[in-house]
């Protein structure tokens, strides 16, 4: 894989306004480098999507942030505390790491009670956390009787126990049905409304796109891009899809566009030609086609999804339709 660019947010905020800041964070397991020199800069109060294919190093990075895995090299700070001293910041952090893990024989409420006691959090904190995740009615039932969606929600409730300033959610939508995913998205938005910084990882870019205002892209353990989602989208010009009125004109239209020096012209597929050229407007294309006696029946813009941008940035080709897993790419 070729990493096409590594960008830092322009006008990067000072470290005090960053919830998470790392420098050269690296983890090697034997000869295998799983995370390679990652420098994160996640602003306070943002909802930051942490995206990359399965095996990109997201979970290992998150575990290093949570003090579960010791970095091979590099360092950083979280909420002002040093990464080398997780106790200095973890009392302000809530986390759901991979699949939720609780004691199956205990009720949801007792599971939270055990965690609250351990973190010296008042037991009363469990009530609002359960309420917020819609788990109050089932809190007295044994964890093993919960559906996957309920387990995820209990995981979020556990993360909310310390009234966190930073919430780290690793693949929170895993295994959820579409309704559950929508619900999870709503929850994440509500955390942001409360001023909580949220770092949410996913291999489903389309999910991240809908809820995040900041994005960190990682592939093969390396940082590919990070910055506000709006900046990323603004840098990308939409493609223009044109279609001739008569299918017989398709080849001619393609040839005209190519002769006009447009940098990228996708081949005809479904009777359309996709022009991926910056600085060319719909009116220009219409004039060009008319001048060559071709009437267009369609001129439309096609905006790039975050997923498309990811593949552009990593120099790989997307063979996926929206919603498919990036992990499917080998």
């Amino acid at each position, binding site marked *: 894989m070729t990493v096409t660019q590594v960008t830092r947010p322009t006008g990067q905020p000072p470290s005090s306004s960053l919830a998470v800041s790392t420098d050269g964070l690296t983890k090697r397991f034997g000869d295998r480098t799983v995370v390679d020199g990652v420098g994160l800069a996640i602003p306070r109060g943002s909802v930051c999507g942490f995206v990359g294919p399965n095996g990109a190093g997201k979970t290992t990075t998150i*575990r290093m942030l*949570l*003090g*579960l*895995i*010791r970095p091979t090299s590099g360092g950083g700070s979280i909420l002002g505390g040093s990464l080398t001293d*997780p*106790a200095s910041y*973890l009392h302000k*952090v809530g*986390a759901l*790491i*991979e*699949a939720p*893990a*609780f*004691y*199956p*024989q*205990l009720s949801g409420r*007792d599971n939270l*009670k*055990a*965690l609250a*006691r*351990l*973190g*010296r*959090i008042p037991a009363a904190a469990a009530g609002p956390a359960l309420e917020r995740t819609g788990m109050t009615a089932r809190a007295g039932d044994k964890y093993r009787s919960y559906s996957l969606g309920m387990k995820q929600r209990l995981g979020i409730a*556990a993360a909310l*126990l*310390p009234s966190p300033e930073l919430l780290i959610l690793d693949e929170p939508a895993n295994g959820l049905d579409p309704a559950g995913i929508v619900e999870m998205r709503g929850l994440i938005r509500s955390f942001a409304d409360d001023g909580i910084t949220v770092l949410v990882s996913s291999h489903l870019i389309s999910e991240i796109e809908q809820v995040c205002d900041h994005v960190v892209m990682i592939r093969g353990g390396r940082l590919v891009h990070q910055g506000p989602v709006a900046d990323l989208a603004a840098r990308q010009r939409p493609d223009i899809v044109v279609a001739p009125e008569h299918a017989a004109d398709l080849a001619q239209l393609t040839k005209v566009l190519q002769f006009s020096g447009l940098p990228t012209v996708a081949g005809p597929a479904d009777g359309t030609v996709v022009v991926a050229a910056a600085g060319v407007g719909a009116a220009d294309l219409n004039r060009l086609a008319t001048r060559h006696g071709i009437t267009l029946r369609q001129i439309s813009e096609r905006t790039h999804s975050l997923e498309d941008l990811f593949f552009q940035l990593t120099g790989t080709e997307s063979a996926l339709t929206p919603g498919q897993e990036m992990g499917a790419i080998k």
Partner: protein
Amino acid sequence: MIGASYLSEWVKLKRRTLLLSTFLGLAAAAALFVVLIFSNAPAHGSGGGLPSLQQLARPNGLVFGLTRATFLLGVVAFGTAAAQTASEYSLGTLRQLLVRQPRRVTLLTGKMLAVVTFMVLATAFAAIVAFLIANVMAQSRGVSTRAWFTGAGFGDLLGALGNIELAVIGYSILGLVVGQFLRSAVAAVIVGFAWLLVIEQFILTRIVPSAAPWLPGISLSTIAGGGNPDFGISYSHGLIVAVIYIAAAIAAASLTFARRDVTA
């Protein structure tokens, strides 16, 4: 900090199924030994290593059954304790715990103290049940219990109970450590039982009898019995060897737990 970890562990330990199975299981095992000893005790002398009815009527007669049951109590304590640490890895709950308590040695210490307290209480409960059964069995076999309730009798009783509890604490700590190293409850129980029941009892002590005084399981049995006449091991020797093993185990467990990456 350790107190928070201790109290947190108790939320898990006091669940009804674990509480009933451990307390009743240990009590049943101890009661069984008492019943067997009283039922099969010869009137005089000793038969098959069992105390006679005459010996049972002495001040220390009350503790015979429980002392004999210690090995079984120890094995149960080992397995229960091993499951408590290993299951944190297999369930993946360890990562949750470490986010709430990142000071790992603090977490481990609180957990160990809680599990050890749990096993000490379970053993005390088993002892009470065993003593009640012993009184009933003594009536049925015509054994006088007058000497049991004298100052010497109570002294023997408390001394024996203290030794048994010490041994159970040792088995529990070894169980916690093995569970933490192997990270699998099943593997920890198999390895622990194989070592204590097969390797020590039937292989090492028979092939290399001179090694017996230096084995952890035998040392804990020696503490429980107040000495080990079978292998000629004194109580103090057993105590010192066991303490060394347990201290080394705790040190190794703390060191590896503090440094090991948590990927489960």
